[in-house]
């Protein structure tokens, strides 16, 4: 019956788990819902912001770190219809952003695959959307931000006023301070739905070629069967989406929210060689059979909203995801050696995907152009060995790992592979000399 005090530093101990299930720990948890809560004296303790908590890489929690959950900071603060800009709080979800923008005849071009991911999380991880070659990454569409740091208070920054802090915050995984709000640039909504053309493809290189031939497509990416080996390695489906006003079956906005804990509810992984082969075969045949499908913009942007079984099947053991940006100069060598590595180690590879990519940030985010390869693996005995050899392949081919996708990426690999790793470390030391903002990710990457 004792109703608690409204103390600004109301804390509890919560258990946090990375989305891939690989990292779990308990730490103090704050759920601020007023601006003065953000300013609360945490006694000099380390802290990190948390959005939806769907990061693969344990970016939003850490040992001995106060987790500041930003879910209440989810308001739309200002809208300039003429300039097509909207200022939103960092806890606004991209699903809400898409719905709100759609009501105003606008859209946001860079959306990750799940609607509950927050704007703050998207900036911190510098996420990309369905055609990052054309649209760039999320941070490209951020005009300004408000960042809070206890030593500096609330600061409004943009690329001109504080280029160093701005650059370090875009793709800086919340380590420069707390992203409070951001002003985003929007585009006119081209149409209400998306027509998705689905075509079979026989190899990874073929999918890259297909994407190269369609650089201006609205949505462009591929899916590949992870169970295929030998000559069938890399067979998959190309997805090309274009905006359309053709009607579709539903809006898809009702979905069961996914959390990292919900994803890991099955005690065992239901993915094994038989289920992967069966599911992938069926998925490929279904997509080829359907050919072209018209989807709502919501369904097209967030394919994992309605389809949660894929991730839930990895169960408590979790999944291992890696994503790397491969420069064009070493593309063929990368693909060839990846195929050989998969044949040799034979991990339980569930699926792969490919996009074309262009990144411009100067932080921990991938930077430059090339082809983006993602691999999802079930955690088995061969996974660690495969990933270790995969790291060597990354270094050997000049590829860059996506820090946001890999909860075990060693600091040594990040330091060698990411072009801005060292300069980011230096900037971080200037922005946050006491390293007040920390996470499991920053510990692992020795930032």
């Amino acid at each position: 019956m004792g109703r608690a005090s409204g103390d600004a530093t109301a804390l509890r101990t919560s258990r946090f788990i990375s989305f891939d299930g690989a990292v779990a720990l308990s730490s103090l948890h704050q759920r601020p819902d007023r601006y003065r809560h953000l300013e609360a004296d945490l006694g000099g303790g380390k802290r990190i912001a948390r959005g939806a908590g769907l990061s693969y890489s344990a970016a939003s929690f850490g040992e001995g770190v106060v987790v500041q959950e930003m879910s209440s900071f989810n308001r739309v603060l200002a809208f300039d219809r003429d300039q097509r800009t909207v200022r939103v709080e960092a806890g606004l979800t991209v699903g809400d952003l898409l719905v709100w923008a759609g009501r105003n005849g606008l859209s946001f071009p860079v959306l990750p695959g799940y609607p509950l991911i927050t704007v703050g999380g998207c900036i911190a991880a510098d996420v990309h959307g369905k055609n990052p070659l054309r649209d760039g990454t999320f941070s490209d569409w951020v005009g300004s931000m408000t960042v809070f740091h206890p030593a500096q208070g609330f600061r409004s920054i943009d690329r001109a006023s504080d280029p160093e802090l701005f650059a370090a915050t875009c793709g800086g995984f919340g380590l420069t301070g707390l992203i409070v709000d951001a002003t985003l640039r929007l585009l006119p909504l081209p149409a209400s739905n998306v027509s998705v053309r689905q075509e079979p493809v026989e190899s990874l290189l073929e999918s890259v070629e297909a994407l190269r031939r369609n650089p201006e497509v609205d949505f462009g990416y591929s899916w590949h069967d992870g169970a295929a080996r030998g000559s069938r390695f890399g067979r998959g489906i190309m997805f090309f989406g274009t905006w359309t006003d053709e009607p579709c079956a539903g809006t898809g906005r009702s979905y069961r929210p996914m959390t990292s804990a919900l994803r890991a509810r099955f005690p065992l992984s239901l993915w094994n060689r038989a289920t992967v082969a069966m599911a992938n075969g069926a998925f490929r045949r279904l997509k080829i059979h359907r050919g072209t499908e018209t989807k709502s913009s919501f369904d097209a942007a967030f394919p994992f909203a309605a389809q949660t079984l894929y991730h839930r099947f990895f169960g408590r053991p979790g999944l291992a995801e890696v994503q790397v940006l491969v420069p064009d100069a070493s593309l063929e060598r990368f693909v060839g050696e990846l195929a050989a590595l998969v044949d040799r180690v034979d991990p339980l590879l569930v699926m792969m995907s490919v996009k074309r990519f262009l990144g411009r940030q100067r932080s921990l985010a991938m930077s430059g152009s090339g082809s983006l390869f993602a691999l999802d693996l079930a955690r088995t005995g061969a996974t660690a060995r495969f990933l270790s050899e995969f790291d060597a392949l990354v270094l050997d081919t000049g590829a860059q790992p996506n820090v946001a996708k890999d909860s075990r990426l060693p600091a040594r690999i990040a330091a060698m592979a990411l072009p801005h790793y060292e300069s980011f470390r230096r900037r971080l030391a200037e922005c946050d000399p006491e390293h007040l903002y920390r996470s499991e990710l920053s510990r692992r990457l020795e930032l």
Partner: protein
Amino acid sequence: MVIGGSSGLGRALAERLARAGHSLVLVSSDLRDTQALAADLALRWGVQAVPMALDLAQSPLPLAALDAALAAMPPLTGLLLAAGMNREGDEPGQAPASFAALTCANYTNLCHLVDHFLPRLRREPRSWIVGFGSVAATRGRTRNAAYSAAKRALQSYFESLRHFLAGSGVKVQFYVLGYLDTNLAFGQRTLLPRASPQRLADAVYRRKDSDFGVSYYPRFWYPVCALLRQLPWTVFRRLSF
């Protein structure tokens, strides 16, 4: 007008009312919070929302500022008093300033607000005053001494108010609240489940035309509180909560 309308229950009420198209005056102790919520409600729901800052722990209240805000609004038809203040060390023997702040924020200033706006509310054919108490006020305990006393006094005031306004167009409602899933209860170990402030806001809005006087939310608190009231002192004094 939602007093305490920036977070927790107050925010949920403001969002529910905005969704129904009502113009709003949002009052809380920090203008940054009410400004953010007012902007959001205006942009999402197209309603007029005016943010105001008011420290309910201070007395006297600057009521002229609220009157000025209302001047540019449609007639006032609802006053929802979702504000409350609770703090550590609220025990017998506390400093007078602390006691006064708790009493002002949880009782006297809320009554002053009702008194001040009553003429406006009575002028309207249908209007609505809602107060929120706490199950913590069921019986005096070691903790929350001034808070609980203020909430019990507020409930008594609302009973008088309902009696006074019987037969008028003003509905007077009082909710006795159990644990809500807000920042107030965050970090606390609670004996019974916490209710969603959004669901409570839905229920408050749905029942806005009902003449029920006092209601417990969630409803299971009614028998729990009735039982607590009946416990003999020899048993009650052994309870630690």
